[in-house]
């Protein structure tokens, strides 16, 4: 009889794990997927274009219901897991159901970080993480409301441009001196800022939020320099943190995220972690690519294979219509690194490549991300690119022709 496998979480990581299991360990497990959101798993990355009105709700769906059915997966949607009984090897669901497991996978994802300043609880201040968030934001934007987005990272930028495109008058407030400061250098960030600004978003850098004003709902954001930005809607997108409460409650070791080893197992050999909720080799990932890599490793492990996850190369893709940003690996050259820059400010194009000892270790592509996968491959493979050096910035086709 198939071993019961319970997956807590039904996001992109969980979906990919089911898909991988279907390929690597078909029929080996009786799978149950439990998710808090009352709908089919969807592609969270597409929330921004959905917000912008560029795509419809059903375009977000990862897999149709029939797909889940075909895999014999029991789905429990709109049901939170309240506790794990490791001794009994069961999980308790809100509403009373208790499911036994042979193996348990925690793919609980992350939750948005909220501001803790005065007024942060006022209505009209929200995060941007779920379909339901979009439902609240869209109408405001469409009627041309003043909106402040706090956070100039990937999510904040996507929210801001999505809202602006939908009709909102958007100001983006960012603490750092440049946008996407962890993924971009100053020049790349400046070029991105130009492109974002061109899309109708006013950007305020070096700006800390002091508090919010408003009586029964938010009316404005007060910055630490005292300036006030009127706002009918505030979207806080200052990051996410792993959703590890359930694991912590179950007595599993948690630091920033649920600690897992290279097999993605927690200290309990029957409980595994996957996706944004875990901490692996000290690293917490807030991106989908690492989760997909983990899903592949975990599926193999669950299939009885000896598979190991060695961590992921950080690669970021910003997809705001017309403004591509890709960032991977080391983006600020330190000692022993060499830098190649290709820039075309008029076309909004900036490309930076960081090399160490003849190998590509990182790159930034702003404006035009053609070749991103090629560069990622080069970074991952660690191959010597000295011979391609001159052609590297122009993309794969140039390098291939050079090599031929």
């Amino acid at each position: 009889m198939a071993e019961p496998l319970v997956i807590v979480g039904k996001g992109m990581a969980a979906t990919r794990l089911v898909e991988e299991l279907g390929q690597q360990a078909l029929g080996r497990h009786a799978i149950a997927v439990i998710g808090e959101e009352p709908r089919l798993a969807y592609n969270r990355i597409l929330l921004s274009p959905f917000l912008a009105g560029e795509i419809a709700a059903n375009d977000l769906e990862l897999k149709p219901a029939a797909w889940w059915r075909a895999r014999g997966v029991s789905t429990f949607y709109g049901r939170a897991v309240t506790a794990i009984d490791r001794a009994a090897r069961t999980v308790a669901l809100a509403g009373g159901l208790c499911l036994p497991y042979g193996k348990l996978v925690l793919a609980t994802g992350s939750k948005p970080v909220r501001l803790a300043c005065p007024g942060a609880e006022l209505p009209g201040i929200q995060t941007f993480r779920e379909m339901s968030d979009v439902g609240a934001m869209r109408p405001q934007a469409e009627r041309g409301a003043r909106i402040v987005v706090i956070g100039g990272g990937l999510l904040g930028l996507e929210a801001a441009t999505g809202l602006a495109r939908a009709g909102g008058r958007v100001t983006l407030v960012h603490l750092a001196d440049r946008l996407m400061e962890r993924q971009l250098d100053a020049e790349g960030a400046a070029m991105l800022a130009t492109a974002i600004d061109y899309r109708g978003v006013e950007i305020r850098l070096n700006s800390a939020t002091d508090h919010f004003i408003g009586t029964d709902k938010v009316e404005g954001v007060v910055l630490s320099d005292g300036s006030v930005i009127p706002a009918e809607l505030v979207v806080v997108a200052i990051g996410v943190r792993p959703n590890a409460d359930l694991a912590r409650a179950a007595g599993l070791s948690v630091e920033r995220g649920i600690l897992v080893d290279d097999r993605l197992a927690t200290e309990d050999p029957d409980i595994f972690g996957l996706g944004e909720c875990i901490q692996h080799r000290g690293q917490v990932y807030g991106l989908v690519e690492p989760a997909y890599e983990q899903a592949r490793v975990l599926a193999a492990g669950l299939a009885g294979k000896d598979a190991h996850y060695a961590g992921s190369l950080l690669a970021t893709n910003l997809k705001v219509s017309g403004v591509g940003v890709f960032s991977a690996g080391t983006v600020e050259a330190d000692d022993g690194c060499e830098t190649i820059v290709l820039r075309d400010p008029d076309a909004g194009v900036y490309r930076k490549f960081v090399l160490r000892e003849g190998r590509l270790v990182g790159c930034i592509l702003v404006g035009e991300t053609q070749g991103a996968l090629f560069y990622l491959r080069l970074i991952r493979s660690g191959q010597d690119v000295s011979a391609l050096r001159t052609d590297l910035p122009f993309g794969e086709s140039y390098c291939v022709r050079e090599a031929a």
Partner: protein
Amino acid sequence: MRHDAPLAPTATRTTCPYCGVGCGVLATADGKGGAAVAGDPDHPANRGRLCSKGSALGETLAQGHRVLHPLRRNAAGGYDAVGWDQALDGAAEGFKAVIRDNGPEAVAFYLSGQLLTEDYYVANKLAKGFIGTPHVDTNSRLCMASTVAAQRRVFGSDTVPGSYEDLDAADLIVLVGSNTAWCHPVLFRRIQENRAERGAKVVVIDPRVTATAEDADLVLPLKPGMDSVLFAGLLVHLADHGLIARDYIERHVAGLDETLANARDIAGNSAAVAARTGLPEDSVKAFFTLWGQTPAVVTAWSQGVNQSAQGTDKVAAILHCHLATARIGRPGCGPLSLTGQPNAMGGREVGGMANTLAAHMGYTPAEIERVQRFWGAPAMAQREGLKAVAMMEAVADRRIRALWVMATNPAVSLPRADAVRAALSGLDLFVISENVLSNDTLAAKPHLILPAAAWGEKDGTVTNSERRISRQRAFLPLPGGVKPDWWIVCEVAKRLGFSDAFSFRGPHAIHAEHAALSAFENEGTRDFDIGAHAGLSLAAYDALAPVQWPVPWDRPQGTARLFADGGFFTGDGRAQMQALAEPAPASATDARFPLRLNTGRVRDHWHTMTRTGLSPRLSAHTAEPAVSVHPADASRYGLVEAKFARIETREGQAILKVATDTGIPEGSLFAPIHWSAETASDARIGAAVQALVDPCSGQPELKATPASIGPVTFTSQGFVLSRDAFPLPEGSWWARLAVEGGEGRLFATNETIASAMALVRARFGEEGLVELIDREGGGYRCAVVHQGRLLAALFLAPTGRAPLWDTVKAVFADPTAEIGHRFALLAGRAASGTEPGPTICACFGVGLHAIRAAFAAGATSAEEIGLRLKAGTNCGSCLPEIRRIGARAFSTEAA
């Protein structure tokens, strides 16, 4: 008339302004200042064919670089545009002052083989008969002076005995010191046709194995300067094998015995010849046998023979062999000097050289008196004047105080060119008649710049290497205030008080007087007699068909050949053989200067490039000045292909690109003569050339200067393309060339990428700047794109990995083209398709890659390449290269 006024679209028959082949050209003005150019099928020199240079003449008619109004130097050292009256008065006053203070012999004229005969005639007449100075010389001194001297010594006159037709009828053609394939391409094709149709054999004698030697029957790469050893040896061989034409010698030639004895001393047998020339004895014997057994033999030569301190002897040694066998003046045989310039011979005809007086007359009292009577001249020069090199020395030490330079660029072309340029700056009166606004000679700051008519505007006659007088006709109006050279000379003459002798109605009237002088008291005593032209009307002059002189009054159809039956223009009618000096280079190499620097032409450029440098097509074949060096010498002296080398001599230095070439003998260097301070930073090769001259001809030994060579390091090299001039980093090496759409410079520098970036910003700002920056890798590329159009591009890479520019050049060519793909542009790639590669066929702009691709796709011969790509089907000067590319393609295939 405005220079851009439309002209009727009828073709004008004229003559090419480049080499001494003197090809007929059909030029059709396009009404916009340019012209379509085609070979004249009816001209006997070329029968419709043109070489790459001639074909591109239409690209060289632009006005932007022209001097259009008289310019007078002001106190600040700048120039003011002045009217012709002011300019001519200024010149006349200046000459008068110098003559008054220093005598007429303080005045000199330095003329040019690019002048028309009529221009030459009035200049020579003014100097030698009216100012009274014998110091009239010409750039022909660098070109044909040794041939002139030898022909005068041996034949008694400066007479080319044969015709081009002899190249069609010969069974053996010997090319000595001549890269005919590149320098006289149309004649080379005639020779190739003879080979193909009649099986003529070709022997190439040249220390340098050039394109001319590619598929010759016998190649003799002898040691530099040993030509006369080879021909002395040939004379001995002819004598020892009973091949001397005793009867002809008996009746028409003096001095054989002494000459033969001397030849035996120099080169007594083939072993001795082999030892002295460095040739395998078998090759020497094969050559002697072939020459001896082939009555229909043409020996043709160029600068490899002439530009020598023993050039006169070398030419004489060739003439001796033809005389000894009576192989002269008959169809298919004879000595044939291939002249370098379009009208070197016309200049010789009027006497525009320091060692002749006028119309093939010298400085005997009778000749001086005769010319004086004819001209009604008040102040006849009484003795030979200073030849070019000596003239410039006299300028330097101020024996010459006033100099008038016409149509030439001596500050580039003369040996010790830096010293010449410096000397010119010290003249009391320096006048230049010139086409262009800027060149190295103009940089010496003449007091007056007189704007002279250029090819296409001027009207007169030229004489080619086979004594054929052809009309050069105008098909463009004179632009701006430009005037013909003859007019300028005559106007100055009038202001000097010689109105009667210089009031010509036009070039036809000058030609008529020139013709009359040639016939004056001639009675067959002088070879040069064009008496039939003495009464030529304007209409007849305009309609003049190409004709070979002599054209005496009773032989208007001209003369194809001379001397078949003797009739030499010596006192007794006998040719004069004479012993040769011991063959040796003018100066010895030593430990400090162990190499010999040879100089010459590249395929698609002409002289100092003031004309060919305007053509993007012509600039594509050899883009940069390079020193060719044997690979063994390259490694011996630490040189690397495509990097840089400094050539040093006792006179000066130059820095050139390095091109290894197994055709260059070890111990030799070859550098092009074309680049000047206008077109390159450090390639004025004339500055490094010694000024040692032939004692008889005064021609300098330009091909054997002792030299050393060593590497020069630049960290980066690259190119810049710009619509207007663009400043390069301080201390850059550069070569400028014409490209479609603007100017291109290839350069090398030790400056950092940051300084290149700063220059770009200083010139263009940040707007529209597309850049690739690889500081650590030493790479920088930028394109300046304004409103979607490419304004400029600069590419820089570490030395040895210079970026190719063909694709960027192609984009740059159209200033109105929208830049579709900026990455492709900076990548130096065509967005689709491939790099064209270096241009091989300049006529049709076919690149190396296309030719390789065609061979790869199944073409088996240069002819098939012609059918597929048209490459090589016009001038054919790239055919050797195409064959080489084919051979390489097949050897790769086989391997």
